């Protein structure tokens, strides 16, 4: 119990009041000098008490009574339930071992809060979940510890039972950052219990890979790999990134003092779909475990928009029709360049009378910028009524840049659409350039005749089944004008031709890319003809939509679709949807075909099933696999095999967890060292002797405050004292 006093004014006032009271008391002693000494002493004492009590009340006296008690020990046990805890470890999984460790801790510390964690925290839980409920998510110490310390304020200690294979922010933080983070959280001692066997020998391994699960085609994709080196003064310095057997990039490795090094790969994926990349560090000759020297990462490459480069050699109604359609299509990211004035117009036109460039809205054709630096960012290049003259400085530049476009098509899955017109017929022919090798129809010489007749197109046998011509009607979609005497490329397929067999529409698959030659500048009129007939004009748009999607190899134009669906709740299950279409894109009804799901790492893991399509050509089936890993889904031994792109899927939760499952004691050790805890092996646990916070400290759990001014007995006592003093004065004739 303690007494608290407050001041009632400035110091001089306190002194003045005190002195005044003392003077009064001295005067009262003096005034009773004629009395007997006992009476005098009694009265003075009473007066002293009354004055002192008054002076005390002026200071607002408060009585404080506190109750102290030793706090109850509150220990949080965090059990790692990430994907790597499902790894087998001498007859049992790591998670099952963690259950045993928990039992040992509970035997000695019965009162504890139980949590589980992977990339987030679960709990407090009444009991540990089963090993078969692991969802395969990744480990994140940073998130989990932050959450547990924010949830409960009075934690005396934390026990982390884990294999230490952290893939969150914690591993990326340096020592100072980690210390500050723990200080900010006011972390109690953290004891780590390592599950799994520590590797002591020389080791170089891919510790983790940081990459997005989804990226866009022809957009930069960054993959970061963290490499761990243990007990190796000299180690391999080059890290490779592979896709299948193809080396994509090689980077140099530098390892810091703690044995970790980072490398970053950046490249531009060229095709859409699931891509399985592998990061490989060459094994050292003294290494015993080389399984962790490579790690896979599966990334889904999709398409945000179709990036179209539209270049027109002359300004025509056909250009307007195509431009108008591109402007209205939200899926098209359009970069256009139209030649609005040629060198001839500058030399012999009125512009020669010096209309300054500042009065015009023209920009020089950025030949190098478009064809050299930005070329690989496009999905498809459209040359509309374009010839090989006027746009290049010299023939060397023309050959160099057009060769680059050829390489873009043949080696980088590029697409090219050439629209023939009067300008391309009259100007220097693209047929004499390197592009001739990749064009479906090749103009034979410097100039070719341009026939202007209205033609009804004849759909060839190959055209009947081509998806580009789905919805094309020869009676409605007439061709007015075409380049004559074009030579089809030997590998091209002619889809439309005139009655005289002049090619009007031809396609070519050249290398990894595709090209189309549309031999007319009149397709814009199809739209108006449709409107005139009372139709919506959608067939014209559909024709161009099909044309572009076919040329960029969009999966929607494939006859066969395999779609795989995964579930977070059931990480080892795979739902598959199959869509089969005939050559004419009609649904393949009631077709039976085998479906194969095979492990990429383990050839013994093979699952087969037979599916039968319904009236829409669709079929569904479910697979359940025993082990997590990368699987390839395909249609083997069937006529559909060549048409179906095999799908690669990862089953089992987080890929990162699956990549490297070696225990990492360093992470647990760092946590323990910075908080006053210790790292323990699962075999020797002596929980009674572990350090906890505030073991000897008492905490105030209750506090009572009593203001004497409000004390119910205060006034009666004061009145009683005054009454006694009055009585003495009256009986002793003092007043």
């Amino acid at each position, binding site marked *: 119990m303690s007494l608290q006093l407050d001041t009632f004014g400035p110091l001089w006032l306190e002194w003045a009041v005190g002195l005044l009271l003392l003077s009064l008391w001295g005067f009262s002693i003096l005034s009773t000098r004629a009395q007997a000494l006992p009476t005098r002493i009694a009265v003075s004492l009473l007066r002293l008490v009354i004055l002192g009590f008054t002076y005390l009340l002026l200071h607002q006296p408060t009585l404080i009574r506190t109750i102290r008690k030793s706090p109850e020990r509150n220990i949080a046990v965090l059990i790692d339930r990430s994907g790597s805890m499902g790894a087998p470890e001498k007859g049992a999984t790591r998670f099952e071992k963690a259950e045993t460790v928990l039992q040992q801790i509970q035997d000695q510390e019965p009162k504890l809060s139980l949590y589980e964690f992977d990339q987030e925290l679960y709990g407090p839980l009444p009991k540990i979940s089963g090993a078969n409920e692991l969802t395969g998510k990744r480990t994140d110490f940073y998130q989990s510890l932050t959450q547990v310390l924010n949830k409960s304020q009075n934690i005396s200690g934390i026990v982390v039972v884990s294999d230490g294979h952290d893939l969150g922010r914690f591993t990326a933080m340096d020592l100072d950052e980690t210390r500050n983070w723990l200080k900010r959280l006011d972390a109690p001692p953290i004891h780590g219990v390592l599950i799994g066997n520590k590797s002591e020998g020389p080791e170089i391994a891919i510790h983790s890979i940081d990459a997005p699960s989804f990226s866009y085609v022809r957009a930069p994709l960054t993959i970061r790999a963290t490499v761990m080196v243990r007990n190796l003064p000299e180690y391999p310095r080059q890290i490779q990134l592979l896709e299948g057997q193809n080396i994509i990039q090689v980077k140099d490795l530098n390892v810091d003092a703690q044995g970790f090094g980072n490398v970053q790969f950046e490249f531009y994926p060229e095709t859409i779909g699931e891509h399985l990349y592998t990061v490989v560090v060459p094994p050292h000759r003294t290494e015993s475990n080389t399984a962790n020297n490579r790690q896979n990462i599966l990334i889904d490459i999709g398409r945000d928009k179709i990036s179209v480069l539209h270049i027109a050699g002359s300004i025509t109604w056909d250009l307007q029709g195509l431009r108008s359609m591109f402007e209205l299509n939200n899926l098209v990211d359009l970069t256009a360049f139209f030649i609005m004035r040629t060198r001839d117009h500058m030399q012999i036109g009125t512009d020669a009378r010096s209309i300054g460039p500042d009065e015009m809205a023209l920009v020089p054709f950025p030949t190098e910028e478009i064809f050299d630096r930005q070329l690989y960012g496009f999905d498809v290049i459209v040359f509309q009524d374009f010839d090989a003259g006027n746009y290049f400085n010299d023939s060397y530049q023309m050959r160099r840049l057009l060769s680059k476009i050829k390489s873009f098509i043949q080696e980088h899955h590029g697409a090219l659409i050439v629209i023939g017109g009067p300008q391309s017929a009259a100007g220097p022919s693209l047929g004499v350039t390197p592009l001739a090798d990749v064009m479906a129809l090749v103009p034979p010489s410097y100039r070719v005749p341009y026939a202007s007749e209205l033609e009804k197109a004849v759909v060839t046998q190959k055209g009947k089944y081509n998806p580009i011509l789905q919805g094309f009607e020869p009676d409605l979609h007439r061709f007015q004008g075409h380049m004559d005497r074009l030579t089809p490329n030997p590998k091209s397929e002619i889809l439309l031709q005139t009655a005289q067999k002049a090619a009007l529409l031809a396609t070519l698959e050249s290398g990894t890319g595709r090209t189309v030659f549309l031999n007319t500048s*009149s397709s814009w009129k199809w739209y108006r003809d449709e409107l005139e007939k009372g139709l919506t004009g959608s067939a014209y748009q559909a024709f161009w939509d099909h044309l572009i999607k076919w040329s960029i190899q969009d999966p929607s134009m494939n006859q066969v679709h395999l779609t795989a669906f995964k579930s977070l709740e059931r990480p080892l299950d795979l739902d598959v949807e199959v869509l089969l279409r005939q050559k004419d894109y009609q649904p393949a009804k009631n077709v039976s075909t085998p479906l194969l799901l095979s492990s990429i790492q383990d050839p013994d893991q093979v699952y087969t099933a037979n599916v039968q399509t319904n009236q829409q050509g669709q079929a569904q089936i479910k697979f359940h696999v025993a082990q997590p890993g990368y699987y390839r889904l395909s249609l083997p031994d069937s006529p559909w095999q060549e048409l179906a792109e095999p799908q690669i899927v990862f089953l089992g939760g987080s890929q990162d967890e699956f990549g490297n499952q070696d225990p990492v004691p360093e992470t647990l050790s760092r946590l323990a060292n910075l908080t006053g805890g210790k790292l323990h092996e699962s075999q020797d646990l002596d929980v009674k002797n572990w350090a906890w916070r505030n073991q000897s400290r008492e905490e105030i759990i209750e506090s009572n405050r009593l203001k004497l001014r409000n004390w119910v007995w205060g006034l009666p006592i004061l009145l009683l004292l005054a009454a006694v003093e009055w009585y003495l004065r009256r009986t002793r004739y003092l007043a």
Partner: protein
Amino acid sequence: MKRRDLMKWLLTLPAAQLLAETDPTLQFQFCMLALGPDWNTRERALVKLCFEIQKRCNIPIENQARSCTINQVLDVGSPFFIVSGAQPLPEITTHQADLLRTALNAGGLLLFDCFADANDDRFYRSAIKMMQKVFPELGPPQKIPNDHTIFQSYYLLKEARGRTNRTNYLEGWTRGNRTLAFFSHNDLLGALETDSLGNWSNNMEIGGGFRRELCFRLAINLTYYTLTLNYKKDRAFPPVIERRRRQ
């Protein structure tokens, strides 16, 4: 080949040639819409304009403009229609409005050019009435802002010009980001018109040669806008154009 077959072939050859010539051309060509009592007053202006476009622009264009009635608008290969006049336009039927609507929806463009006196707005009011029938959803014409593509589709222009000086702006009927029809109050074609010897047919109300040149530039910009739409609003151009306008 038998003699009879040869004769047949020789007889059919000119007929085939004739048929080929009657095919509507898909090259760019101006088309005067035969609407109103004075629709062909400024017809020769388009001859001069075609000649200037041939010299200045990379637009394959027919030398001569053509004309058509409103019932023929869908037969025209090049749907750039011009309605010129000073007198009020006759009321069009619903069918004719549908035809014109289809032609403009399919990429065409309509230009009203008024050469009426300053206080005479009968042509303007009749044009609005006609467009209300063609595009009832668009309402009355709106003033075309100075940052519209029409003022930067080829030449950089600050305002609309013409032979007269009634307004310094164009009006238009716009849907989305595309203007389907324009109205010029300033007798644009009057500034371009020449006689057969090449002499200017009409004096400019204000100014002379350079003002007439600005009229040609506006007409060329209208042509480019029709064919390239909002190309000059693509991301590569606005910074360059802004910089040039500030100079």
